[in-house]
């Protein structure tokens, strides 16, 4: 039914590689010292990086997941500084960078429906803006480098506490070479009721992007943060390895939405974790469309009584892609709950793996967890696996786990085509329907974008 797919990747255009500074290829203590030096960082951060580098060197490559054998750490640039100074307005940026973000629709999104935005190009945030209304309520939204300079006490208190460098090889790598990312602080009781967004763009070939995001939501606050990512198409590999740490205090709620649409030469190896305290809510809403390999398991550590975690993800894997994604919920306090829903679509030999962990501690009396994984496989060459791990140390809990693998059936296609839809429209409708329960959780504009991407992914593929 589905013949070869000629994917149209709309964001594959590239700018000339211009930069004001770039470390030499490969990774060493010297490169890390250089990154720290050019950023004029305090000694504690320089030490944080160097210690993390030792951890990175000492840890083996993870062998339990996707094939990373073609990822060559020596063939990457770890730091590329695109401009001398960050822009205060889009007009301040060099025209090629501004045009790129215009093409991606970022300034328009900022005007229309965001409370603030940060745009990162290569290693540095080039534009950052928070609307006055939120600034005056004490909300901080800056890139993390700026935060190290302007809010060192806050950064020092929290960085590496949720995802320590020792956590895994890529969290160590990020800790050693991180640059950019968002730092967000929402004061007690403040509700940022329209989203903040960060947009990440890799332009250069063989580039690594290692943003570091740190979000602190004080008691009773609310935040919705959205991140988007794209890159040009190259035949050589790029690496995106971010760390996201979120602290959600009593009664606060943080929703973190991602539309990841990297080009198919990007390794996307990301560690995202949140600590959820009493009666707080953490929601990870994760759309993975692009990249060559993604390893991403957004996690919530439910530390406070009554805390809730929602982990919703959609993954698409086409030719040459492996999405190894899922979620983790650790129930470490009484009456905590988690809801994990994962939907994946595999086509043209693409591979999806759901990898998840639910741990319910002996302390987590009365906790609840529900896990649901649905896979849709569009042709014989594609593949879907689930690796759910469930560990329960308490008898007084409730847990449900459901998994399904489905195909688009001839009967469904006939029903829709008998109403006048063509094959492409019918397939797209069925796929949209399949992921609908998660797409509807995205803000309207992103849901529209996701649906458009599905159609592009299918176009030219159905005879």
């Amino acid at each position, binding site marked *: 039914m589905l013949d070869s797919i000629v994917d149209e990747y709309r964001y594959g255009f590239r700018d000339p590689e211009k930069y004001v500074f770039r470390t030499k290829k490969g990774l060493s203590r010297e490169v890390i010292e250089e990154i720290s030096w050019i950023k004029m960082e305090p000694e504690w951060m320089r030490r944080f990086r160097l210690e993390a580098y030792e951890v990175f060197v000492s840890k083996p490559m993870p062998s339990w997941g996707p094939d990373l054998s073609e990822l060559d750490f020596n063939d990457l640039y770890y730091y590329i500084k695109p401009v001398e100074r960050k822009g205060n307005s889009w007009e301040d940026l060099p025209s090629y960078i501004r045009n790129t973000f215009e093409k991606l629709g970022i300034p328009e999104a900022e005007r229309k429906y965001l409370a603030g935005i940060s745009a990162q190009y290569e290693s540095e945030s080039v534009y950052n803006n928070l609307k006055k209304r939120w600034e005056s309520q004490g909300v901080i939204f800056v890139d993390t480098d700026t935060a190290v300079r302007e809010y060192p006490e806050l950064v020092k208190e929290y960085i590496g506490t949720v995802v320590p460098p020792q956590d895994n090889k890529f969290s160590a790598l990020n800790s050693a070479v991180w640059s950019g990312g968002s730092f967000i602080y929402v004061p007690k009781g403040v509700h940022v009721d329209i989203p903040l967004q960060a947009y990440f763009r890799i332009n250069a070939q063989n580039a690594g992007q290692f943003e570091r995001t740190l979000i602190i939501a004080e008691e009773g606050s609310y935040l919705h943060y959205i991140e988007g990512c794209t890159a040009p198409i190259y035949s050589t590999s790029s690496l995106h390895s971010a760390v996201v740490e979120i602290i959600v205090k009593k009664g606060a709620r943080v929703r973190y939405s991602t539309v990841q649409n990297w080009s198919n030469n990007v390794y996307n190896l990301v560690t995202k974790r949140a600590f959820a305290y009493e009666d707080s809510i953490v929601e990870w809403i994760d759309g993975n469309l692009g990249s060559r390999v993604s390893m991403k398991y957004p996690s919530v550590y439910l530390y406070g009584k009554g805390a809730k975690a929602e982990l919703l993800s959609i993954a698409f894997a086409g030719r040459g892609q492996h999405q190894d994604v899922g979620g983790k919920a650790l129930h470490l306090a009484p009456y905590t709950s988690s809801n994990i829903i994962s939907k994946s679509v595999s086509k043209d030999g693409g591979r999806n793996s759901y990898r998840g962990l639910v741990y319910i501690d002996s302390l987590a009396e009365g906790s609840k967890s529900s896990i649901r994984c649905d896979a849709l496989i569009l042709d014989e060459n594609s593949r879907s696996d689930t690796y759910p791990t469930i560990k329960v140390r308490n008898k007084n809990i409730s847990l449900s786990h459901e998994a399904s693998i489905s195909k688009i*059936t*001839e*009967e*469904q296609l*006939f*029903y*829709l*085509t*008998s*109403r*006048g*839809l*063509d*094959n492409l*429209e019918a397939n797209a*409708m*069925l796929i*949209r*329907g*399949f*992921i*609908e*329960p998660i797409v509807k959780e995205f803000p309207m504009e992103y849901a529209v974008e996701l649906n458009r991407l599905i159609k592009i992914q299918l176009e030219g593929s159905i005879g």
Partner: protein
Amino acid sequence: MLRIEDLYVEVEGREILKDINLEIERGKIYAVMGPNGTGKSTLAYTIAGHPRYKVNGGRILFKGEDITNLSPTDRARMGIFLAFQYPIGIPGVTVAGFLKTIMNIRRGENISLSKFNRLLKEKMDILEIEEDFARRYLNDGFSGGERKKCEILQMALLEPDLAILDEIDSGLDIDALRVVSNSVKRIFSTNMSIVIITHYSRILNYIEPNFIYVMKNGRIVASGGRELVNFIEENGYEWLEEVDSKC
């Protein structure tokens, strides 16, 4: 409107329909009757263009055009509509969203939301369907009656030239049957043809057909006016063997 000539159809290597000839005229209602497993639904699927139903001989003409090899999409766009006996669930696609999509295709232009909502409300009222029905996922978790009403709702909005209703009466209680039948009658116009496929004559007390075809073992074995319905009601389908041998 529709003309079938010497049609032979095979499904998964088995010949189901043999030498079917029939004529459906504009502005008339037809019934295709016959015992279970006799090829009535196969006939419906074949007219709608199901890819698994292979035409081994003969042809199907619709509005003068040979549609034997056309896709279901093309046939639908020309104005053929099949109300399924067992409409399949499409999770994640709302009834309203689906209806708007297929109406736009049928009309060849995008209907305005206000006009769509007005039409939808009007047709749902006739079918005695609750308002929240439009927000549910298509045929997903519907009761038998809801499924059938949803098929007729689609027919009402699409206004096809030819509507084939495959066992639209099965699984309906007497009230639902009355509502569905009345709706079908209201949708019917002199520009339209309707083919009611049924095992029982019950629905034909509500919608009076102009002409009846009776099928058995993949063949049309009798045809005639309303008197045929009464005869079947009294005598069942047993007598057909004799008719068959006489033909």
